[in-house]
């Protein structure tokens, strides 16, 4: 028995020795082929900004080939961070400024009092374009803002079910009213661009602070003063940026990669917040902030004294062009021939 064991051991030793001498190079090459593989940690460390750990996929959706894309979390953080902050600060900040301005300056009156005689400031086409732009913008701003802060502000008040329905309708309104908004933007641009090219009178207007902060100060202006030009170009440039990015968001295939879509979304939301703040100021000065201003876009007929105070050069131009017909007497009726 012991002899047999010894014999086996000797044989084993011989075999081992044989292998040891005959095959050292082979043993060195004998790696486990499944042992060396891609490592999650290495791939994640090697990722550049915006990249994903991706591979081959057998389903038609090519985007599904991205296995892990950590940067998507950055977009989520930006959306809940910077984007939200910019919107809240811009809008609340503007409201605080306007309340402060109102307390300091009050309603800006027509200093020489209403004359009763009126001048046509905006015709029907201009007013239609303005109100189309205004109405669509307000709905777009509210429905857009709802996507950002609605869950914190409205959801706790009306509950999950009602808020879901409201937001679903809001999304539809946002997607479809974007088109009349863009149409109105084009009409407004064509109608007013020539009046909004900056010129020398704007420098004087800005130097005098537009007369906004002091009674009795009325820097001359043509059809649009420098402040209105700022509003115009903000609306045109901001509106164009919102339109372009908005169309990209509506058609993700056009936007390209998801990183591009995310970039467009961030631009869209930040520009929208700033635009909303600007428009709140515009609404203020066109309504409660200034006597006689609303008529320009309401009836289209502004009081002669208002026009002379705020747009002196424009009144002169208009009178030079149209003569006495430019100014309509009190009551708005055309002059009656003497009996």
């Amino acid at each position, binding site marked *: 028995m012991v002899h047999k064991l010894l014999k086996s051991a000797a044989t084993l030793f011989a075999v081992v020795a044989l292998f040891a001498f005959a095959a050292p190079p082979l043993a060195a090459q004998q790696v486990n082929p499944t042992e060396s593989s*891609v490592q999650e940690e290495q791939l994640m460390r090697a990722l550049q900004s915006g990249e994903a750990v991706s*591979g081959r996929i057998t389903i038609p959706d090519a985007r*599904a080939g991205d296995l892990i*894309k950590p940067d*998507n979390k950055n977009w989520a953080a930006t959306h809940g961070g910077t984007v939200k902050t910019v919107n809240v600060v811009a809008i609340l900040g503007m409201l605080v400024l306007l309340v402060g301005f109102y307390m300091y300056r009050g309603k800006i009156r027509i200093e020489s009092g209403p004359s009763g005689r009126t001048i046509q400031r905006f015709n029907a086409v201009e007013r239609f374009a303005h109100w189309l732009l205004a109405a669509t913008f307000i709905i777009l701003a509210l429905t857009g803002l709802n996507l950002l802060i609605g*869950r914190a502000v409205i959801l706790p008040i009306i509950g999950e079910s009602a*808020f879901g329905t409201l937001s679903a309708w809001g999304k539809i309104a946002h997607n479809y009213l974007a088109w009349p908004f863009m149409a109105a933007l084009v009409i407004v641009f064509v109608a007013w661009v020539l009046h909004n090219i900056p010129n020398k009178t704007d420098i004087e207007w800005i130097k005098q602070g537009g007369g906004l902060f002091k009674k009795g100060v009325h820097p001359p202006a043509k059809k649009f003063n420098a402040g209105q030009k700022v509003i115009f170009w903000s609306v045109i440039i901001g509106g164009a940026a919102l339109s372009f990015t908005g169309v990209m968001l509506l058609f*993700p*295939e056009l936007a390209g990669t998801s990183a591009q879509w995310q970039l467009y979304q961030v631009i869209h939301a930040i520009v929208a917040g700033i635009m909303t703040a600007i428009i709140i100021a515009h609404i203020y000065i066109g309504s409660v902030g200034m006597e006689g201003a609303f008529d320009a876009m309401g009836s289209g007929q502004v009081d002669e004294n208002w026009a002379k105070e705020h747009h002196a050069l424009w009144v002169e131009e208009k009178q030079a062009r149209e003569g006495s017909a430019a100014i309509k007497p009190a009551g708005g009726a055309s002059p009656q021939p003497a009996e």
Partner: protein
Amino acid sequence: MARMKFLCDADRCIECQACVTACKNEHEVPWGINRRRVVTINDGLPGERSVSMACMHCDDAPCAAVCPVDCFYTTADAVVLHSKDTCIGCGYCFYACPFGAPQYPRVGNFGTRGKMDKCTYCSGGPEADMTQAEYVKYGSNRLAEGKLPLCAEMCSTKSLLAGDGDIIADIYRERVVTRGYGSGAWGWRTAYGETISV
């Protein structure tokens, strides 16, 4: 309570796609929606690995953070679920998710994606457990039946693990020690800010 997680041991995955098929069948998922998919990294090269991926049910889920209607919620088992009644199909969660989990019934043009659909960890939705209403919207609720997700339960090589995070991490760690290698806990550092150290 358990903290439910998935873990795909890529060194065992043979890319058979059975988890994908089982998921589709179990939940009657419509065409075009893949709650789970298998991605092959370094395909055809030495050291290629296939990873089965679905919703990872993240800590601080970014989908929930960006949802405009706050339709996501986390269950006691740490599963991230959502309400299709509240969802408006805006697509934000898709762009927030690092794993491509949110799916939509239609192509996204003009905001017509439809209600989002994603892996529910086989635990349904906000409706009452194991009701027809729940099944139609979210698929079956195996967790309520005391079972684990089907994809992991029927994985032929036991590559895909589902269960309490600590337990499946222990199983994976033991495997790595025994066989001497492991390609890592795919997605864990992104979803949970941690990985499994061996």
